[in-house]
Each structure stands twice: as C-alpha cells, then as structure tokens.
C-alpha cells in the first residue's frame, strides 16, 4: 500500500475510483502514445448511443429508465412519494424542494444564507450519515487577495494540482483540475503553443521550465459580465466565485475566459465518500452537481479562515505566494514592490490578480 502510494502520480489521481488507469502505464511512465509500447485501448468506453443500444439491459433496468424518463424534471415526484415513506425521506424531499426553488446566493440575506447552508449540511447527513462543516463566511473588510508565481522556483512537481483536487472535492472520474502546469522549453521564452500542459514524466525535465495557470481572479472579469443569471460574480475580497446552485450551465463564461480558468461538470461529479473534504464553504469546495461550472476560488474555505490556499501550502519549492494586497506588510506586496512582475494577456484589460516573476 505504501509502495503504491509512493508511485501514485498526480495525473491518475488514484484516490480509489480509477485504479485501472494507472495499471495501464508502462515503463516509460506515460499512459498513452509516445514510447511505442502502448497499444490503443481496446476496451475503451463505447461512444454515444452505443453505450445504450449496444448494452444488455435487463427488464427492471429498462423499466427504471423508462419510468425515470417520464418523470424528468419533476422534482415533486419525491415529495409525492413521501406519504408512504418515513420521516427522514420526507425531510429529504422537503430539503430537495426548498433547495430547488431557493434564490441566488449573492442576493440572499444572512438568514437565508445560513438556512441554505444548514439544509445542505443536513441533506448530506441524511444521505451519507456523515457530518460536514460548511461555512457561509463573507469577505473580510480591507482584504483583497492576490497571488504571485515564481517561475524560477517551480519544478513541475504538481503537488499543487493534487492538493487542489483533494482540497476542493473535484470530480475524480473526469480528473478535473483547476491548475495546469505548462512545461516550457528553455530558450523559447514563454511559448505556450509549444508547451506541454499534460506531461507524464519525471520532473524537472532537462532543458525545461514550468509555469502554472489557474483562475486569475481578474479585477475586471469577462466571465462575470456574460453570465445571463448572475450566477458568478466578484466578491468584495476580489475572489471570483460561482453559485453552483444558481448556474444554469450555459458555459458562456467558459467561452469568455481568456485564461482557461473554468471547468464544467459534464457528468455527475464523483468523490469517494472517504476522500470528501468535509471542511467546506458554500462558494468553495462543497459538492457540485451535474451540469454546472466551477473554478478555483483561491480556496475560499481556507483563505477566509486566514490560511493559505491548498496549492500554496502544498508547493515544495515555495514558488507560490498568496496574500492580502491591501496589507503593506504582506509577502505578496513585497514581491510586487521588489520583483519585476508581469501578468498574462494584459492587453485584454482583464486585470488579473495573479502575477509572475523570476528570481
């Protein structure tokens, strides 16, 4: 077990749900392509309709699917069933009902925020029997979060990516990651086109340097303007957040983001129960649902509690610096004042709060 843990690569995110992925890798350390010893995956997931038409479905399964299709969109169904069900499922139906028809978090009063958080905690308890802690803490006064990335220090270990996935309860099935590490070639400058953001080999690779990207929490975020329902917005402390329960899943924000900062839950996100981070925030790492957009929040559940985001804490080289831009004594302010910093795609006028610098 310990050995297996040691071999665990960030990319397989082998947290129990997809062991077969890592079993495929061969000596070259890659999962596919490249070394020549890989066969194309023959048992790959069938595409599209073949998943259904080509699959054996017993009668009960077929009946269940048929019934479900008749009930599509009818949230009331569970409520109507509650005559014969016990108190708990009645309560669950009540919670589901209220959750379905609650308003936009941004416009909620303190009481409403507390009520929805309580419902979500209770709902999780009813479903799994486990308790979690969820915060609805607002932005602190005189705080504006900023981030700096030291290109000289980053070695591409990707501990930040792993920590981020585990901290923020990202879907393990689709291996969703907020952070991308781009492996660049020495002598070519910041050439993203020729960079590899999907490498599977030992790092640091000779003749390469590394640069991480994630949501830059722009001060003038294009993604916020385009949302048709104001499901995403910039908080007072500069964090750009999403109300996962208000998002309708149109993905206009993903098209509008110049930094590839947003991710979509193409299917129902899956996190094994034992690995769920139970220290949650409504706008942060609480469990998402199918069909909504999510993104880096600078770990709002940690940052508003006075801690560094998980990526900063996990970085073994100290390449990541996080802090309050309004605090003149913060490290981030020191970096901005003493280093030659720059930001990506500044010509777009998005004003990212994420700076790069070199030693």
């Amino acid at each position: 077990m310990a050995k297996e843990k040691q071999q665990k690569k960030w990319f397989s995110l082998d947290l129990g749900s997809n062991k077969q992925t890592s079993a495929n890798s061969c000596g070259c350390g890659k999962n596919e392509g490249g070394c020549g010893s890989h066969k194309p995956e023959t048992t790959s997931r069938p595409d599209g309709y073949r998943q259904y038409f080509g699959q054996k479905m017993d009668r009960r399964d077929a009946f269940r699917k048929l019934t479900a299709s008749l009930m599509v969109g009818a949230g009331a169904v569970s409520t109507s069933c509650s005559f014969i069900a016990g108190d708990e499922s009645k309560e669950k139906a009540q919670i589901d009902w209220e959750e379905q028809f609650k308003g936009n978090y941004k416009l909620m009063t303190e009481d409403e925020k507390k009520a929805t958080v309580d419902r979500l905690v209770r709902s999780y308890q009813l479903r799994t029997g486990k308790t979690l802690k969820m915060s609805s803490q607002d932005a602190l006064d005189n705080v504006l979060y900023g981030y700096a990335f030291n290109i000289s220090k980053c070695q591409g270990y990707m501990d930040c990516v792993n920590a981020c996935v585990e901290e923020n309860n990202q879907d393990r099935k689709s291996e969703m990651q907020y952070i991308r590490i781009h492996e660049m070639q020495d002598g070519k400058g910041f050439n993203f086109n020729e960079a590899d953001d999907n490498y599977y080999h030992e790092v640091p690779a000779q003749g390469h340097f590394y640069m991480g990207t994630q949501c830059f929490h722009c001060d003038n975020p294009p993604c916020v303007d385009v949302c048709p329902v104001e499901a995403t917005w910039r908080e007072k402390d500069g964090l750009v957040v999403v109300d996962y329960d208000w998002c309708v899943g149109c993905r206009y924000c993903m098209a509008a983001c110049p930094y590839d900062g947003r991710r979509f839950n193409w299917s129902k996100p899956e996190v094994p129960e034992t690995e769920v981070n139970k220290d949650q925030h409504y706008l942060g790492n609480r469990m998402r649902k199918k069909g909504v957009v999510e993104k880096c929040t600078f770990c709002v559940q940690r940052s508003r509690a006075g801690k560094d985001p998980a990526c900063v804490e996990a970085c073994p080289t100290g390449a990541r610096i996080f802090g309050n831009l309004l605090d003149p004594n913060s490290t981030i302010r020191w970096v901005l004042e003493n280093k030659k910093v720059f930001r990506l795609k500044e010509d777009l006028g998005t004003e990212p709060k994420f700076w790069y610098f070199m030693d």
Partner: protein
Amino acid sequence: MGRFKVFKSLVRDSLDITTHGSKKYHFWMGFLTLVMLVGMYCYFLQLEEGLAITGMTDRVSWGLYIANFTFLVGVAAAAVMLVMPTYVLKDIDFKQAVLIGEGLAVAALIMCLAFVVADMGGPSRLWHMLPVIGVFNFPNSMLTWDVLVLNGYLFLNLSIPFYILFRHYQGKEANPKVYIPGALLSVFWAVAIHLVTAFLYQGLQARPFWNNALLGPRFLASAFAAGPALIILVLALIRKFTPFVIQDTTLKKIAMVVTVAAQINLIMLISELFKEFYAPTHHSESAYYLFFGLDGKTALLPWIWTAIALNVLATVILTFHKLRNNFNILFFACGMLFVGIWIEKGFGLIVPGFIPGPYGKIAEYTPTWVEIGVTLGIWAMGAFIFTLLAKTAIGIETKSLRYKGNAKA
C-alpha cells in the same frame, strides 16, 4: 365573445385540416414524428448522463447545438427579406410568399430555443432566467439580449400572420393600419436578432477568431443568402404538393435577393481570408486550424472546403441570369448554398473559436451520436411545426378554410 367563438372554430378547423391529408402527407408527418421520438430518447440519455455524453469538453465547450442555434437565428432573420418588400415596399409579387416566410421564421425560432435548452447543463434551472422570480443579467450579458430579441421576434412573427389569417378566415380583409407598424418593427427586429447573436461571440476578447468587427455584417449577409434559399426550396415544394399558387416572378425575385446576399457574403469571406493569411498573427491560428489544420489535427478540413466549394459554386451559378432563371438549376444552387452556409456558419464558426485553446492547446471536437440524434430531432420538430403552420395558412389563403359560423350568429 364573438372573436373567441371564431378562434375556437379556427383551432378546430386547423386541427381538422392538419390531421387530414394525402398519403404522402401522412408519411411525411409520421417520419418526422419518428425522428422526433429518437431525438427525445437521445435527449433523455443526455439528461440522465449529463453533457458528458456529447463530444464537448472543457477545451471545446460549445458544439453542434450552439452551431445549429447560430445558423437558425439567421434563417429566422431572413423572413425580413420577404416582409420588407411586401409590407414596406408594397411589392405585390412577394405577397404570396410572405406568410410562408414568417411561418419558417417561427419554426426556426422555436428550433433556436430548443437548441439552447438542449445545450444547457441544468435545464430544470432555466427559471433562474425569468424576470421577477429569477435574475436577468441585463444589459451586461449579451445572452440576455438574445433571449429578449429572439422571444420578441417570435411574438412578432406569430402575431402578424395570425392577425392576417384570422381576418382572412372570416372572409374579411386585414387592416394594414393594424399590422404595418408591427411589420415595420419586425424589419428592424430581424436585423437585431442576428446582430445580437453575432455580438454574443464578437464581444469575447478571449476568442480572437470571433472577436472581429466583420462577424456581425457577415452573419447578416450569410443569413440573407441561406434563409431565402431555404424559402425558395420550401415554396417550390409547396407549389408542387398543394394548390397554393406561387408565381414564377416571386421565386425569381427571391432568387435575386439570395444572389446579392451570397455575393456580399463571398466578398466578406475574401476579406476575412486576406486578413488572416496575408499577415498572419498569433490570432490567426484558429483560421489556420480551420482551413489547413494545426499540428496534424485536421478534423474540420473536409467540412470547410466542402462549404467553400459549395458557396463559391452556388454564387457563381446564381450570378448568371440564364442559369438562375432555370428553376431546376436555381433549386440546386439554393440547396448547395444552404448546406454550404450551414457548415461554414455552424461548426465552421463555433468550433475553431475554441481551437487552439487560450494557451494554445489543440483539442479537437467530434459530435457523438446522441448529440446528432438530439440535433436531428430538433430539426424534425422544426419541420413538423412548419408543416402544421403552412398547412393551416395555405388552407385559409386558398379559401378552403373559412369560418362557417357567421350565418347562424
């Protein structure tokens, strides 16, 4: 009270006329119903599994649905090319076609809305967009503008023909004072729906392929080519299968509109190609991907070159009077133009917007069968709705459908 009675009679009569017809008619409607059912099944699969069942990914986050949506907004807007000559310029030759054009616009708009809903991750949360109970990010989000103009245009294109047909149904003339203001408004509105849809993409600084001042005008030109081309084909079919009379001059005049729009569209295409390839910048990479492929990724190549060939050939054919005035050739050219623009403005526009990604990543997109099933289902629904509307309208206009309750009342 009296009006309500007439309306009830109209509904009953139109139900009657749309459920009776020739064997061919029943076969057509049965076929469309079958495709719609397949589409519904595919959509059910998508609802259960999530959009993961489509070919879309975080890298290419819009695909076939949004491509068809964009194209169909253009088809809907094209009704203006019949409305304006008829109601504003009082050209009598367009009069017969205008109701069909408006019917087509209604069907196209309903398809647009269906495609947007099909693309949503959470269709059950769509009420979040409704005024009062939801939050409508107007005027910041171009998507909310689009919701407004599309629904407004749908209302205009439902109400004007309905008023006219309702009068004709009772054997009365429609009062121009009632419908002309609406028709005038719909002329501007048609331009607005397509311009706003273009702005949806044009306003994104993140996607240089779309962030281009020519996009809006180009949308209009291609719409006024593809839309009337479809109208010509539909009119030809109606002429063949129903007693509804459509003069040759009507078709020829619409063909003229198609021709001019197709020529302008081609000029704009040349302008775009020149800009992208004469002095290519970092921002030309999407165009390179579309036309020549990048890094050995060439999924769109066969499509775009087919589209270009179809567009150029059709435009050349239409430009010559002799060829254009031969109806068989005209219909052929219109078919080519329609398909060509569907490709070019559909996934030829949407997909390259995402490729390469913001950091140069080239991840291609191929729609899955479920996605194609839903798409075909929505197209069948559009054809179904149009057939119902057209059959009633033609019944009234050929005087076979008339209110009979007057004598008794």
